[in-house]
């Protein structure tokens, strides 16, 4: 008898085709988000505050009510949605630039207020949509279109360790950093997303998952090289792990 081992999640728009670059981890990340929405029965209760970057395309793929937020403001917009409609499931899906550069204040203050919101932050160490400029998590020495000789401290300062900062906020219920570079890590990432979503459902506060992800196009690497970079370079600075968990 045939056993179904995989199906496209209901929370993904049927018939949709991803527009992401080959080797981009957005495809996997959004599938995990959609699977967790399905498993927790949230599709009809969910409202997402969209962000700006390659993540803006979420509403082309994920089949939930969406309000598009200005760049960086997703968590302020999400706060407004959740305060107006506390019984809905409200989440954001943002890049590292949206969450931790232009939006850092709105992001951390939502965590500090302990808003019952869930956030996925895709950290690919670059401003991807605009062609690969230096961003808040670009590594020291990393070459980008605005750091052509590599990120140095004098001109550009240091990258931010996002999950750690979020964990320091007393209103945070769950803060973890995961990656999608191996099957094992993908499975861990899905569990983390589930925890972050459950934190909201249990009214425990802000649930956050930082996902280390590839940007092969702007890193000028093959998909395989890009996934290796996550392990070989990014893990050193952005260590995977659970930085706060009050859900246990």
């Amino acid at each position: 008898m045939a056993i179904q081992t995989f199906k496209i999640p209901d929370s993904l728009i049927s018939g949709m085709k991803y527009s992401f670059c080959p080797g981009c981890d957005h495809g996997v990340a959004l599938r995990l988000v959609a699977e967790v929405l399905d498993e927790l029965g949230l599709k009809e209760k969910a409202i997402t505050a969209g962000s700006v970057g390659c993540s803006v395309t979420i509403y082309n793929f994920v089949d939930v009510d969406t309000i598009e937020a200005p760049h960086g403001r997703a968590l302020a917009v999400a706060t407004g949605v959740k305060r107006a409609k506390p019984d809905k499931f409200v989440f954001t899906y943002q890049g590292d630039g949206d969450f931790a550069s232009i939006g850092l204040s709105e992001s951390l203050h939502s965590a500090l207020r302990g808003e019952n919101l869930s956030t996925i932050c895709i950290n690919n160490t670059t401003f991807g949509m605009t062609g690969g400029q230096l961003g808040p998590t670009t590594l020291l020495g990393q070459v980008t279109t605005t750091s052509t000789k590599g990120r140095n401290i004098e001109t550009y300062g240091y990258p931010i360790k996002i999950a750690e900062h979020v964990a320091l906020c007393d209103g945070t219920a769950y803060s973890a950093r995961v990656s999608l570079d191996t099957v094992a890590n993908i499975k861990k990432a899905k569990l983390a997303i589930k925890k972050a979503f459950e934190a909201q459902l249990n009214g425990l506060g802000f649930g956050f998952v930082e996902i280390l992800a590839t940007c092969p196009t702007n890193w000028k690497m093959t998909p395989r090289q890009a996934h290796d970079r996550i392990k070989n370079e990014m893990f050193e600075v952005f260590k995977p792990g659970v930085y706060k968990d009050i859900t246990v």
Partner: protein
Amino acid sequence: MTKCVLNKKVLTKGNYAIAQAAINAGCDCYFGYPITPQSEIGEYMSVKMQELDRAYVSAESELAAINMVLGACSTGAKAMTSSSSCAIALMQETLSYAASDELPIVLISVMRGGPGLGYIYSAQADYNQALIGGGNGDYKHIVLAPSTVQECVDLTYKAFYLSQKYRNPTILLADGLLGQMMEPVEFGEYPYSEIDNSDWALTGAKNRSRRVIRSLIVDPEELSAHVVHLFEKYKLIEENEVEYEELYTEDADIIVSSFGSTSRNVKSAIKQCREEGLKVGFIRPVTLFPFPTKRFEELSKTTKKFLVVEVNMGQMVRDVKLAVNGKVPVEFFGKPAGTPPNVDDTADEIRKQFKRS
């Protein structure tokens, strides 16, 4: 908040009047940040909204506050923030988004001196900020300008109604003078019907297909069509919602025009000049958008001159000139900031204008 109650009227400070009116209008959410001369609005809301179990957040900035309002409005809720001048400047990006998204944001703008940090005393120099706007693209907000604390109440009610009726951001353009002064007001009840928003509000896609509220439109034809649609809406607003106050215009050789708190001294000066036999009239736009363009056009056929009085370097005078379209001269009298020109100075200016004619 109140000092005495006389019949149904309550002696109320402007800022508190606006806040209570918002509550009476059914404001579900208030998100705000303090700035003089309107901090009392946020203080009042922080107490009352929580008492009523409605949403209140002390936002970390005005930027955050207006975005919270955007989010709340996207669910169909009535949401509002209040601020002043240099902090309203922070909100311009989101006000542009909200216009394109067609969201019923209510924004209370209590003008202070500028540009920049300026100072906390009253001014009218944010007419341009409200009417032309600092956000990108072609869009308009409905702008209502009270001149008394009673009008602060009445126009706050109207702001909530018009914003929902037209799915459009609506600004109550007050100033520090109105915000801080106390006058007797009758609150009454919110006089407008509720508008059904169940066909667009985000409530979770149950028993319907999901909705996306956004301003990103990738196809240039589609974006153009959307902007044209917005301007068709603005035309409807212009045809149906114009409001102004008019005095002694039938035989006026000079018609004075002003908005907001400045109008109080202007009206007194006009009454004085009328008693001296000067044929002076008055028109006060209450809706700044939609501007009473048609009425100015009509009046320019019977009068010989307009005199616009404002506490700025000449902002509403531009819209008067556009409406009059060169038919008769349009003069300007004002001061850059602070309390409006006093009655004597205004009356002197009117007499001067008559001498010049």
